[in-house]
């Protein structure tokens, strides 16, 4: 599996378990608009290139979420106030190719 998109904003789905992703190690593209995730975030695929999580219900991303290959992080219309607890949005560790972060405000990153 390389790409999975789901938008639960208009559905009755309450929450998804991160366990569901354990067999998707190769997942590169993930869209989970409006989803609540339960469980350890270590189980999410860490090869993700695109994470689009519009209306993400959390205030900050969980500390065990690893996004070492992420290129685009899209968290528009979400409740996110800081990326990881105690880390200002601008200071968080960037993956080598990281380029676009869409937030409630939009930030672009450039690499030298």
């Amino acid at each position: 599996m390389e790409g999975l998109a789901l938008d639960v904003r208009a559905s009755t789905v309450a929450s998804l378990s991160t366990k569901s992703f354990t067999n998707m190690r190769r997942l590169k593209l993930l869209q989970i608009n409006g989803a609540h995730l339960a469980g350890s975030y270590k189980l999410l695929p860490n090869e993700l290139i695109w994470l689009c999580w519009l209306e993400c219900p959390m205030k900050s991303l969980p500390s065990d979420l690893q996004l070492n290959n992420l290129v685009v992080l899209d968290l528009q219309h979400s409740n996110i106030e800081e990326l990881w607890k105690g880390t200002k949005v601008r200071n968080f560790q960037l993956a080598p190719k990281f380029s676009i972060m869409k937030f409630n405000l939009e930030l672009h990153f450039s690499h030298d």
Partner: protein
Amino acid sequence: MNRYESKFIQKIVEDLLHKLGPKCLDVAKYPVGIESRVDYIIDLLSIHSNDVRVVGVYGMPGIGKTTIAKAVFNQLCHGFEGSSFISNVKEKTVEQLQEQLLCDILKPNTWKIDNVSKGVNLMKDRFRNKRVLVVLDDFDQLKQLEALVRERNCFGPGSRIVITTRDEHLLTQIEVDGKYHVKELHQHESLQLFSLHAFKDTHPEEDYVELSNAIVDYAGGVPLALEVLGSYLFRRNISVWKSAIKKLRKIPNRQIQKTLRISFDTLDDDKVKAMFLDIACFFIGWDKEYVVEILDGRGFFPDIGIDILIQRSLLSINDENELNMHDLIRDMGREIAREVSYDHPGKRNRIWLLEDALDVLNNQTVRTKFLWSWTSKQSYILSNLM
């Protein structure tokens, strides 16, 4: 110049642009056969009568309904007090559609609608004395149409509404004042459109006349098929043409989707194919630069790849720099992505439907448990054997 001055200037520019009227929509690279069809629709609209008229345009996918509707819009919009062309409606809520209509016609004001009847009342209130032109492109749900045009007295006298759809019955339900069936292009129009794509000329090159006629015959007068086949064969040698005809011959009933598929199958780079499938499944309507970053991260070469897809008429980029794909081409791409495994979405590479996604996610949980119990049972047996 300070910030306030620059804001002020921006405001003046916006007002001016608004006063200059709507900007023209991009119609088609080669508008073959459009003019006569547009004239017919304008006739049906009887522009000079003072009532509110609704005209429906229907026909099969790929036949050119949107192109014709855009041309009608361009030709007429300057004669109205307000105009709106509403497209890509599939994923929009009824309230969003009403908002768009209000914003387009009353710009630069913006509107927020939270329920349908409020929207209808607002439209009545604001449009009643305005002569407007509205095009509703590619609608297939009665609910969406009704929220916009059920009450004709929402619109000022002399207003005109054009609806395009695949579903003629929908037009009957909404009681349109006139219908136009978009039919296939004539043989000579087909050959001309095909030649423009394949040779950048209105006629085929001498050595290719017979081959061109054969291909045109298979495209069955459907502009999208003519465009895709012509774009594929542009600057190709005779042997490629012959093999294309051989492939076309095998397609039963000239099914258009299979015809279009030749263009995908003959992409020689697997990365371009994968890129096409990514876009068809996930990125239609997204900003090009945004998607380029992602595809680049995938290890593809998106700038070249997107160019190839555009040359092949499998993809286009609109004025807002968004990736666009004809519905039929998108469906073909999704069909290919689905073919990998019809019954087991979990074995597919790409999933974009909510039900399939949930199916896969639930099964994964179940499967993990099952595997775990199986392995523990196995290790139990193993440990007992030892």
